[in-house]
C-alpha cells in the first residue's frame, strides 16, 4: 500500500450556470513515503485540484484517494499545504503564524515556542519573529508559510506553485533550502510548478498531467544523484530531461 494512493479519481466542479467542469478524470498516482514528486502540466489542467483533494480541502467526485491507508475525508493533521499566495494571517506575527497550527492542536506553549524557534532558524528568519507579514518581502513570507506548514510536523507537504511569484534569485535560494528541509524533516512532498528546470531539479519523479480533463500523461523518473548541485543545470542528462519534458508539455498545448 502506497503512502498516498489515488486511483481513478474524478473531480467535477459546477460553474455558476450549473455546467460541469471536469477537472480531473481517472487520475491515478501512487506516492511512496519520503518521495519528492513534482507535477507539471498546462494551466487549468487540474494540478491544484489534485492537491486540494489530497489535502482534504475538496471532496472528490468519484474514485479512491487514500493517505496512510485511510480514505481522505477532510484536512489531515499529517498533511499540510503551501500556496503560491503565501496566505499568511496578516494580524499575526511571524511567530504567531507559525504557532497557529500547533495552537489549534493544543500543543503546550513551551513546546510550541521551542519548535517555532527551531523552524524560524531553519527557514532563516531569525530576528524577524515579531514582524507582521506585510513588513516582509515575498520570499520571506513564503519562508514563513513553509515554516507554518512544517510546524504541524506533517508527513506530507502539498505545495501549489510555491515559488511562482518570486524573483529568480529568491526562487533559487528557496529551492536549495527546500531540498535541505525535505531531507531534514523526512517528509513526502508533492510540488506543483510551471517551471520545467525546477521540476527536474527537485524531483525524484516528475508527473506530467495532460490538458483538461487532467489525466496522467507520463511519469518521468529523474535519475540524478542527491544531494542535487546547482551545477547539474548544465549537465547533459539534466538538459535531456528538460528537453524531453518540454516536448511532452508542448504536445498538450
Amino acid at each position, binding site marked *: 500500500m502506497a503512502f498516498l494512493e489515488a486511483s481513478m479519481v474524478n473531480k467535477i466542479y459546477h460553474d455558476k450556470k450549473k455546467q460541469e467542469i471536469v477537472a480531473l478524470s481517472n487520475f491515478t498516482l501512487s506516492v511512496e513515503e519520503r518521495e519528492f514528486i513534482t507535477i507539471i502540466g498546462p494551466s487549468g489542467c487540474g494540478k491544484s485540484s489534485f492537491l486540494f483533494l489530497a489535502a482534504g480541502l475538496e471532496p472528490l467526485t468519484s474514485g479512491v484517494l487514500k493517505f496512510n491507508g485511510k480514505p481522505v475525508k477532510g484536512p489531515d493533521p499529517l498533511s499540510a499545504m503551501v500556496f503560491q499566495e503565501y496566505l499568511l494571517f496578516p*494580524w499575526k506575527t511571524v511567530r504567531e503564524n507559525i504557532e497557529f497550527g500547533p495552537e489549534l492542536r493544543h500543543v503546550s506553549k513551551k513546546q510550541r515556542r521551542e519548535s517555532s524557534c527551531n523552524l524560524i532558524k531553519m527557514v532563516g528568519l531569525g530576528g524577524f519573529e515579531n514582524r507582521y507579514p*506585510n513588513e516582509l518581502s515575498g520570499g520571506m513570507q513564503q519562508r514563513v508559510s513553509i515554516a507554518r506548514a512544517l510546524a504541524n510536523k506533517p508527513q506530507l507537504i502539498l505545495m501549489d506553485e510555491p515559488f511562482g511569484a518570486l524573483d529568480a534569485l529568491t526562487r533559487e535560494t528557496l529551492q536549495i533550502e527546500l531540498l535541505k528541509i525535505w531531507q531534514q524533516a523526512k517528509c513526502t512532498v508533492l510540488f506543483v510548478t510551471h517551471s520545467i528546470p525546477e521540476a527536474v531539479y527537485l524531483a525524484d519523479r516528475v508527473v506530467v498531467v495532460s490538458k483538461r480533463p487532467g489525466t496522467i500523461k507520463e511519469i518521468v523518473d529523474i535519475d540524478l544523484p542527491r544531494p542535487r548541485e546547482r551545477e547539474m543545470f548544465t549537465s547533459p542528462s539534466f538538459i535531456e530531461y528538460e528537453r524531453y519534458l518540454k516536448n511532452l508539455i508542448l504536445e498538450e498545448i
Partner: protein
Amino acid sequence: MDGSTKGLSRPVVMVNGTDLFCFSRSLFNRSKKLLSPLICLGVWELIVRLEFINPFFCPAPTSIVKELYVLLFTGELWMHLGDSVSRAVCGYFLASLLGVGVGLLVAWSRFVEDLIDPLIELIRPVSTFAVIPIFFIWFGIGDVSKVLIITKACFFPIVLNTIAGIKGVDPKLIQAARSLGAEGIALWTRVLIPSALPMILTGMRVATSMSVTTLVGVEMLSADSGIGFMVIDAQRVFATEKMFAGILILSALGFSFDRVARLVQHRVLAWHKGV
C-alpha cells in the same frame, strides 16, 4: 478674555538662532490648519461688534464662549451632557451588539440569510426620522424609545459591514486555515472574525456619527433633557447665545465620538496595511 495675549509670549529659554527658527517654523506648520477658522471667527466677531448684524440673530463668538462658561458652572450643561451621552452610548452599544451578532448569523447560515436579508433590505432605506412616531407609540416618549431609535440608526452600517466583512474573507485564506486544522468555532473566532475586523470596525465608526445625528433629532423632537433639548428650548425662549453654545457642544460631541472610534480602530488594526 483679557489674558489672551499671554499665550503669545515667547518661552524664556536660551535658544540660538536656528533653533528658534525651527521652533517657530514647526509651530507655524502645526497651527496652519487653525488659521482659516481663526480668521473666520475674527471676522464674525468684528461684524457683530461693529453692529452690522443684530447679536440676537447671531451672537459674537466671545459671547457664546461666555455663555458656555456660565452653563459649565451652573451645572446645567453637565446634566444635559450626561443624559445625551448616555443615550447615544447605550443606543450605540446595543446596535453594535445586535449588528455584529445578526451579521455573524447571516454570514454563517444560508437559512438565516434568506430569512433576515429581505427584512434588512426593506427596513434599511426607511429614514430613521420617519419611524420615530412608531417608536414613540410603542415604547413611550421616554429614554427607551430614544435609545432604540439611535440603535435603529446605528444598526445598519454595523450589520452590513459585518456581513460583507465575513463574506469577503479570501476563500483561499480559509482553506489555508483549514489545512492547518482550523474548523468550526475555531475557524470563526481565529480566522474569519479577525479577517473581517477591519470592515466591522469601519461600520462601527460610521455608526458613531449616526448615533450623534440621531440623538440630536430625537432630543429636539421630544425630550426634557439632553443637549438637543437644551438647544431647541433655548430657541423657543430666544436665548440665542445658549442655542449657539449648545450647537457647539453637539459638534464637539460628534467630533469626539469619531475621534474615539478612530483611535480604537487604529489601535486594533495596528497590523493592518497602511496604518
